[in-house]
């Protein structure tokens, strides 16, 4: 698979990191080539600036015998290089939409496209690999693995994406990259601490570093500030904005905090199972 090949390239240690908030991404050029290739393969995406698209997606949950519809035909697209916020009340299906975009779940109908390719009908193995290579995810409750140290948590996706042998071959590069990422999120002094020894803001920073270790194209954030106080939440948001500005990382964020949502490039609201654009 060419994904593992490109992964190898990605794990090369960065020769120089100009500022703690800057990650040099030589693979962006590669991405451009890929984009061209994708457009030739899929004529629908010609001229499409969206990295991830949901078309007429429906999803319902089964609560014992009754079927609860959550999404009733949602059309969504996130523009490349922008921060898109999805707001809505609790239970409005924000997280569900995010999970669908992140291939953690399959829609009942409609389709999800990533870079012009359908992801909702891929076999499980490919979806796993896709998640591992192309997506980064952060959650409200950070979801770090409590048995692993900060550094191990950060390199976990890289370990998952590779076999034991290729991991050991690229170990140095991976650890180097993980260290530069923790350095970027400002936690290089906490490398060998367990998550239970970190504060909420620190855990979320770790989660961000973890999400970025495989150099994904898209960061999905599920209420990243929901469990943090105002100040930490703001600094997390600032970190994401810096990332977006410096590396062009596309971010889709679910939040119920209007204040945070207003700082994003694009804003949509989920209401009654449908989406309305606000900004």
């Amino acid at each position: 698979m060419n994904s593992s090949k490109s992964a190898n390239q990605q794990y090369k240690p960065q020769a120089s990191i100009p500022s703690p908030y800057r990650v040099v991404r030589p693979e962006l050029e590669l991405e451009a080539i890929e984009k061209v290739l994708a457009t030739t393969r899929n004529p629908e995406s010609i001229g499409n600036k969206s990295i991830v698209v949901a078309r007429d997606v429906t999803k319902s949950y089964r609560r014992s015998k009754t079927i609860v519809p959550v999404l009733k035909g949602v059309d969504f697209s996130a523009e490349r290089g922008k921060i898109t916020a999805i707001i809505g009340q609790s239970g409005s299906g924000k997280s569900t939409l995010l999970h669908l975009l992140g291939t953690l779940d399959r829609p009942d109908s409609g389709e999800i496209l990533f870079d012009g390719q359908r992801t909702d009908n891929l076999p499980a193995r490919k979806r796993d690999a896709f998640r591992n290579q192309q997506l980064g995810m952060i959650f409200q409750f950070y979801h770090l693995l409590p048995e692993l140290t900060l550094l191990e948590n950060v390199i976990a996706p890289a370990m998952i994406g590779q076999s034991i042998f290729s991991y050991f071959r690229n170990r140095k590069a991976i650890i180097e990259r993980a260290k530069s990422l923790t350095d970027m999120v400002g936690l290089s002094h906490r490398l060998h601490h367990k998550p239970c020894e970190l504060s909420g803001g620190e855990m979320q920073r770790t989660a961000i570093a973890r999400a970025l270790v495989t150099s994904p194209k898209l960061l999905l954030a599920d209420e990243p500030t929901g469990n943090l106080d105002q100040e930490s939440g703001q600094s997390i948001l600032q970190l994401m904005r810096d990332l977006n500005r410096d590396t062009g990382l596309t971010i889709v964020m679910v939040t119920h905090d209007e204040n945070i949502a207003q700082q994003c490039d694009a804003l949509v609201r989920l209401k009654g199972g449908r989406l309305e654009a606000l900004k």
Partner: protein
Amino acid sequence: MYKLLLCWRYLKTRWIALASIVSVTLGVATLIVVNSVMDGFTSQMQDRMHGILSDLVVDTRGTNGISEPNWYVERIRARIGNSVEGITTVVTLPAMMTFTHNGASHTQQINLIGIDQKTYASVSDFSKYLLHPDNKSQLDFRLKQSGYAPEREALQPSGWEHRNRVEQVKKERLTQLEQYRRLQEQITEEQRSQLSNQLGQNVSKEPASETANDNNSSVSPQTTASPQTTADAQTLSAMMSGPSFQPSHSNEERGRVFDASKEQRTGIVLGIGIGSVRGRDTAGQVKDYFFIRPGDDVSVAFPNAGTPPRAIDEMFTVVDFYESKMSEYDATFAFVPIEALQQARGMIDPMSKVGAVTSIQIKLKKGADLNVARNALRDEFPPTESYVQVNSWRDTQGPLLAAVQMETTILNVLLFMIIAVAGFGILATFFMIVVEKTRDIGVLKSLGAPGTGIASIFLGYGVLLGSLGSGAGVVCGLLFVWKINQIARVLEWFTGREVFDPTVYYFDSIPTIIHPFTIVWVSIGAVIIAIMASVLPSIRAARMHPVEALRYE
């Protein structure tokens, strides 16, 4: 890689899971201990069973035997000669043995075996079970001065020492008897003279004639003392030590007097169980009590070789005991020189001077196949032609060996069930751990870990736990086997009950044998059970839906 890391971290942080594999450890340890003790017992038993039996026995069905043993021996050598290490001929027959203990005669049944002492040692371990050190190197059926198993106090004195002591006592008794007789005679003389004085001459004539009669026959001590005492000595000796039977014919020429203090009769080697009893004294110590010792004479009655057979008596001097520690043998087998037995039974052909034998015993070379050799001989002597049957020692002891084997197998099955129960413990624990780790499973999946990867974390965890458990079990089991006698002693002290009764078993320590193969298959089996127990929880973990798992709080 994350699988190994997480397995290892789970193991390090969840010691409670180790509790679930303690039962695996115990099961494995028990299996190893039981197997090595059973193997130890079996091998000891086989050694003992085999001890005085040769590998192969060519047996006649009757007690009169085959009259041309050399022809058979030649045919055996011709057929399986290159795997034969030694051949000997024996005469086996049932017999009754009579001995005297504390003045009373006792008769018991024995199996009398006539052996060629020069070649018998080459077919079995017989000589190493003898008590006297000289007999261990070469049995000669001669009574030794002393030195029979000096470490056994109960057996001392034995040999000529014992025999001479018995004779000494007999002589003292005879002297006492003599004195008493003289005293009696003096009294009679005095009474007579008194009577004659009282009654006068007429009356005194008759007692005088009586006295004359007495003098003629036996009374006068001065003239006929020595034949008189000899006759007395014989009755007394018969009363005291020997059973009441006709004196032996073979050892003494007719008319010559047998001097028990200087001569011995034909030697006989008895099983230690025939001549002794093992029990406990009031203090609870295990003691042997010998009612026959080397140096005593016994009488053996056995059928002769005529048709119909008649019982004949023969006197033997016990020259040694053997102790094979196989009670069945030790309580019944008695060995005598084959020529003496053939002579007494009339088994020697008057023309050719060749003695008939009842069986031919063969020892095979090391590594020779017992069953192949047996089948070859069975083929050589088919029942249609010969009146012999060929058996290996395993055939004769087959049922017992099979029973022990069966016991071992059943115990193994039962103990493996214990490990299987432990497997269910692991299953339950693992389900708990999977539930506890639901959120982590969701996180791993959201990071792109495939279901198989998640499953292998828990499978690997199971393998790790199983290996740890069975490894610890192997160590514990080996330690237990290594120190089993000390542990038995501690248990005895603790419970006050004897774990290992030396009056029942003839060994003073618990025999153990460790087969590396057993340890390997036991530990592999335990690990497989642990893996099987972790399969279900792993599948559950792998199938877990990431969204559901992440929602789990």
